[in-house]
């Protein structure tokens, strides 16, 4: 009775047979979406238009007047100093508001994180978006004196950066002189640094900051801080005045 056995076996095999399709050929092409694409989708354009109008209206809102062109430069510049000063002031205000028993000693804003110069004259919301296209938030870090020294050494190595609350003299890419909060730097002390979450995560070669004793997130976007502070000062009738005070200098 071999025949029925084979019949059953065949039926089982057929039923379990793979019905899936097989790819016989693949063609691929990564197409550049540039000016060669002639057809725009009118529905998408129509959907976006009112949002764009509303946005452009807001972006052109004047929030301050600057007396100078603010250009970033090393070792210090009006632009890096302005942002770092606002960061330090806001860090202090945050600690007061949150009833913390400490204040940030220094503020750090990475030079590379400031993407454009601010022009002399009217400063708009759009300018600040161009200056800071990233969604970085303000954070507070408590670091040991040793970590602080490595951190400042990195600033010295790159020939300057955006800082507030310190005075740094650079000799051949190394720390020549360092004061924090008006006092000589003490490697045995802990320091509080206010900066952005990108730097706190070790970005821009600041990996030493991963070695921290405390870390506080504020949930405040640095761009929002900038816009609000500048607008507030503007309403009080104060214009942006570029400051160069020798906080970082070459010895």
């Amino acid at each position, binding site marked *: 009775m071999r025949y029925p056995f084979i019949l059953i076996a065949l039926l089982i095999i057929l039923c379990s*047979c*793979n019905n899936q399709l097989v790819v*016989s050929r693949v063609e691929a092409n990564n197409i550049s*979406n*540039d000016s060669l*694409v002639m057809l725009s*989708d009118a529905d*998408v354009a129509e959907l976006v238009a009112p949002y764009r109008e509303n946005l452009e209206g807001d972006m052109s809102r004047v929030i301050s007047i600057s007396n100078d062109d603010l250009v970033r430069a090393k070792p210090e510049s009006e632009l890096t100093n302005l942002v770092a000063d606002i960061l330090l002031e806001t860090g202090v205000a945050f600690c007061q508001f949150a009833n913390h028993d400490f204040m940030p000693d220094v503020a750090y804003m990475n030079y590379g994180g400031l993407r454009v110069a601010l022009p002399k004259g009217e400063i708009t919301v759009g300018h600040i978006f161009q200056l800071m296209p990233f969604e970085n938030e303000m954070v507070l870090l408590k670091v040991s004196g040793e970590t602080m020294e490595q951190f400042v050494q990195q600033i010295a190595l790159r020939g300057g950066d955006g800082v507030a609350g310190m005075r740094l003299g650079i000799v051949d890419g190394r720390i020549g002189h360092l004061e924090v909060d008006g006092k000589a730097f003490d490697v045995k002390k802990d320091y509080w640094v206010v900066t952005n979450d990108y730097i706190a995560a070790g970005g821009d070669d600041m990996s030493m900051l991963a070695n921290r004793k405390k870390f506080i997130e504020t*949930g405040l976007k640095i761009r929002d801080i900038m816009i609000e502070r500048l607008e507030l000062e503007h309403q009080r009738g104060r214009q942006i005045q570029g400051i160069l005070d020798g906080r970082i200098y070459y010895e």
Partner: protein
Amino acid sequence: MEGFTMNSRRKFIRDLVGASAGLGLVHLPADLLAKQDLVSLSILHTNDIHCHIDPFPKDHSVYQGRGGLARLSGLINQIRKTEKNVLLFDAGDMFQGTPYFNYYKGELILKVMSEMGYDAGMIGNHEFDNGMDGIEESIGFAKFPLVCSNYDFSKTRLYDTFPTYNIYRKNGIKVGVYGLGVELDGLVGAQNYLETEYLDPVKVALEKELFLKKEKGCDLVICLSHLGLQYKEQKISDRLLAAETHYTDLIIGGHTHSFLDSPLKLKNADGNRILVNQAGWGGMVLGRIDFIFDRHKKEDKQILSQNIPVSE
């Protein structure tokens, strides 16, 4: 096998195939020939759009005038006019990057992508930029699913928001899609993802591809990945994942903003071909991969397997 000659064996197989075809177990070759033998499926994809709804400015230092979603949609619609079977996917990081996001959160980008007719998206790390609230408030604007297999949202408010796989049927082609997100710790603030649990992407991929291929019988298995193309360190990436898989045909990647001239043709764990592609970022590139299936080839394979029992 005495009394069972070669001729009778052939006749037997022919009869059997004819009989079973009526039961819908297998297709008749004649039935197949009546249809087109070759059927093609176009997979279109983007990644890391980052809310670049408008083209980059004409005076942009690197990407002068490139991108723009209205134009991208025009391009996609053009392809849809010539191709019958099209699927459009995105591999995450739709959010963040232009004031459109700062102003409208996920609303506008998800509305635009819905209008463009995306079939599925994935959750990139930047989708968490406004926290779980941000996702919850925006997700309703997406008329397409965000497929994510390795973020466990079960302890969060978003527990039933994201399918862990999805299946599409296009002209008889069954396509299974699963999604893999990048590790959140260190990349996304803890307060932004809360109790969302990151599961090992390799383990999840192996489970999902097996399930889609074997249990669901998909003809094609696609992974939407936000792991990143490759890293100097041994961090899991699309390249490393590809080498571990068995049934995934294509990994549509993102996160590393990689511009590839064409998809990488890599070998999976069984030494078979797996494609890995990525389409730059900011809507500047549309990835297009056409899979051409040969309906007839499948039949050959079956006939081959039918020979086994009788030639023992």
